[in-house]
């Protein structure tokens, strides 16, 4: 971490408070984080530690109570809904736990959705290219119900990458998959950062999947409690969790 590349994500003092009075819950408490270009970061921590809130705020899906977020040099601050939507469409890719594919559209149509929303002319060609890269070249015209869980998540990843985003946000991307498919998705996401140069921020409960990342951020009660480099060994995340007393 001696020479730091340009950060894609830079957050400072990020705080999110839900409710008020007796029901007040501080989901995030003055979190600071830099995500350099092309880095794969995984966020772990017990339920309710603020992982998902962090992801939502980064994606511009929710607004912080305090603090600043900048994505790819653009401060989210007071962007109006339409500008925020545009930013999501062009610079951020999402991968969800439940895939969230449109059931009535084919793999290509699903993957090209953000491009079409943006009015891109060669949307389909670009989507096909990405589907081929994630290994679905032979399932282009299948609908989600004709694909396995792992295949569906690959379509979702192709969809996230189709707009050439700076940042890919993945919320429990393997939470709904068997262990073999989960590993394949872990490898694929690692490829997204190392080979295709996107920053990836993934939230997961699974230490084995976390080991595909280059860096691990541990959270508890809305704070970052540890931030470690990973060496690719499958035990790395587990050991870090033990050290932080999170296991």
């Amino acid at each position, binding site marked *: 971490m001696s020479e730091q590349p340009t950060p894609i994500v830079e957050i400072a003092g990020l705080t999110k408070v839900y409710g008020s009075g007796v029901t007040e819950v501080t989901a995030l408490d003055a979190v600071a984080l830099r995500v350099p270009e092309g880095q794969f970061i995984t966020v772990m921590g017990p339920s309710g530690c603020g992982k998902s809130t962090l992801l939502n705020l980064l*994606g511009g*899906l929710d607004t912080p109570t305090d603090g600043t977020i900048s994505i790819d040099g653009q401060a989210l601050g007071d962007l109006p*809904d*339409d500008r925020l939507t545009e930013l999501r469409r062009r610079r951020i890719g999402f991968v969800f736990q439940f895939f*969230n594919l*449109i*059931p009535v559209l084919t793999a290509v149509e699903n993957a090209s*959705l953000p491009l079409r929303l*943006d009015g891109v002319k060669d949307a389909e060609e670009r989507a096909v290219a990405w589907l081929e890269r994630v290994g679905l070249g032979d399932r282009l015209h299948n609908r989600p119900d004709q694909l396995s869980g792992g295949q569906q998540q690959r379509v979702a990843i192709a969809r996230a990458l189709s707009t050439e985003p700076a940042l890919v946000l993945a919320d429990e991307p393997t939470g709904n998959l068997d262990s073999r498919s989960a590993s394949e998705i872990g490898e694929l996401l690692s490829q997204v950062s190392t080979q295709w140069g996107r920053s990836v921020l993934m939230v997961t409960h699974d230490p084995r999947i976390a080991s595909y990342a280059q860096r691990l951020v541990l959270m508890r009660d809305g704070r970052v409690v540890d931030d470690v480099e990973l060496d690719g060994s499958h035990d790395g995340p587990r050991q870090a969790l033990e050290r932080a007393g999170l296991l």
Partner: protein
Amino acid sequence: MTLTLAWRYLRGRGARSLLTTLAVVFGVMLTFGLNGILPAMMEAFTHNLLSAAGKVDLTVTSSYNQPFRPDVVNTLLRVPGVAVASPGVQRTVPLPASADAGPDALAQLVVSGIDLATAARVHDFPLASGRMLGPADTAAVVMNADLADELSLGLGDRLVLPAAAGTARFTVVGLLSTATVPGQEQVFLTLPAAQQLLGLGTRITQVEAVFAPGADRTQTEEQVAAALGQDYQVGGLSTESSLIASLQTAQVAFNMFGIFALATAGFIIANSFRTVVAERRRDIGMLRAIGARRRTIMRLFLAESLFQGIIGTALGIAAGWAMALGYFVAMGPIVQSFIHIDIGGPVFTPATWAMSILLGVGVTVAAALLPARAAGRVTPLEAMRPQLGEVYERRVGRQAWIGTGLVVASLFGLTTGSSGLIGLGAVVFLVGFAMLAPAVVNPLAEWASHPLEVLFSREGSIARSNLQRNPGRSGITVTAVMLGLASIVATISMVTSIFAGFTSYLDKSLSSDYLLMPQSIILAQGNVAAGPRLAGEVKAVPGIGAVSTLRLAQAKSDGGDVQVLGIDPQTYLSVADFDWNTGSSDAAIAQLASGRWLIANGIYATQHNLVAGQALVLNTPNGQRTYHLAGIGNDYLNAKLSTLYTSQANLERDFNVTADILVMANRTAGADATTTTALLQKVAADYPAFRLYESESWRAEQMKTFSSTIVIFDALVAALALPSLLALVNTLAISVLARTREIGMLRAVGATRRQIRRMVMAESLLLSVIGTGFGAIAGLWLGYALVAAMRGLGWEMPYSFPWAGLVTTVVVGITFGVLAALGPARSAAKLDVVAALHQE
């Protein structure tokens, strides 16, 4: 992209898209089909009544439908721009009924007396065989070859026509190659021969004119009208305008049914889209997360509804077309035999097309608007959350208060007695009820579930709480069912009231034992009347006691046409009676004998806001005359036409009318019916234009005809009922789909398939019972309002409580409840437990 996605979603929803689209189909079918029927009938009337085109630029007739002096031709020729003016006589005469004539046999002919010197310049008479009429022909006719075929006549054959006194025989001398317009079966005579046949002396009934080349049409018409004055009608014949007005009233009522059906469709669609939005929260959230704007989401839903609207409207128009065609196939013969008019086929005006398309597509898109807006407001975070089973709603409070306010306000409409306000009140009432529905559906379900739990002891309470959990959705279903059933009750109310009203007229107006009248007396104009001799001969028949007659003239008042019937005040009450409006009595009839007094029928009195004692200026053939109103009453024959009644003495003095159009006679007590009837038949045989009816059988015949027209209403009722069935099926299907996971859970904790089926069935029954209750109340109100509105238009009719309608509605409502539940109940019971539990 939006369109592709919308289209895929629509197709993906398969059965449900079909159900909601069907609702639009029905609505558009009714709007389009009904509007294709009525204008066609009006066009048929107009077509039959207006002179056949030919080269005629202008036709002059009497404003009073009376013959006039031939020198009108000269007045006409003096107008610059008029090149030819051809005098003529045209009257419809009944054909003597022949023993072997089938039911489709021609019953009447139009006798045309043509002026040989000028006729050829206004009409073509292309001869197919034989010769044209000559000046010396006093007993010769020329007719179209196709008509001659229909009458089984050839050159040299004899045609017998009824004359002012007895009959006259004519020889067919020429056949024309022109085609006959149905309803315009004409035979041509020389003008003097026709005048003699019809007892007109030298008078004529019309002048047909051709303009000089280059003459300004409008200007010439105006100048002709100015030259002739108000005693003459320039242009088409204005006869039957009040009949057309009644048809227009009917069109308004029919349109209302179409709009009702579409409103029901609107509710179904709104409900469907609400659920669709709830189901797709996660899809919407994802789309928002990956960069779809709010308006893109809204557009997606609107596009989906637009597709649905377009498809539904297209199918609806096709179905409406078929419905109208079916109507004409079924009704054509009935109308033909009843009023001798060929109603042809459906006519769809551009306005009908425009209205159907606008309403069909418009209602669908409008119904999707609110759900679409709600969809636009779904946050991207929805994509991250595990899906909620259903969206709960609690915003019923304010809406319910507004609804209550509207219902109370509509009550005032009833108290005013004004048909407009009553009608408006009925609509306001429906809207109020619809707004109130979500708030009252829960307490009502509570109450209605008690008896239900006897039938469904275990599942009843679960069904009730399912229904109560989403009062918004339940309210919409109840409203859709209510609208569907309310229109049924209202239609039946109206029909039974009309039926009761006509039966009462029939009994009161025609209390005599015998009637002698032309076959198509309803469209009285153009009928041949009988001199006073006929009544005298009837009176002389042994066994006949009281005899009274009716005479007919036309007048103008307030710029409109009105038929004036002459009655004999001394004898009228012995054979007939009026159905009096409040404040009038038989005394009015006696008053007719004491000077220029009139009785007006309900329609006329309402149209002109008449009150007893009021003065009325009538334009008669002899000039303006002031009459006074003795009373307001109705008789059956003229229930639908603007009519005034005065004494026959007045009719003779002011209208020069002395001929009888109808003879009513009673038997003396103890006279033998068979003998008397036989004797009367002999008298009637000399008057081929007239037919003898025994009142009993005539009434029976009228009732039969009337009943057969009720078939149309039954079909209408069925068409109105179907959308409410769709509403129920749709809502239930949706509620089963929305609760897939919950049903899986119930199965997992031990509910049997049978119990699940019964639970869905119980919910459906609850919804339909409440909807039926609402529908019955709203329908009674609406029916009352319709009857009041008709009364407001002058169709005096008693309000007849639709017991049969209520029973039908309750049976239909409950049956639909069970039918609608069959499919959803089966699919709910068949759900795979594990898959259902994993359902997102």
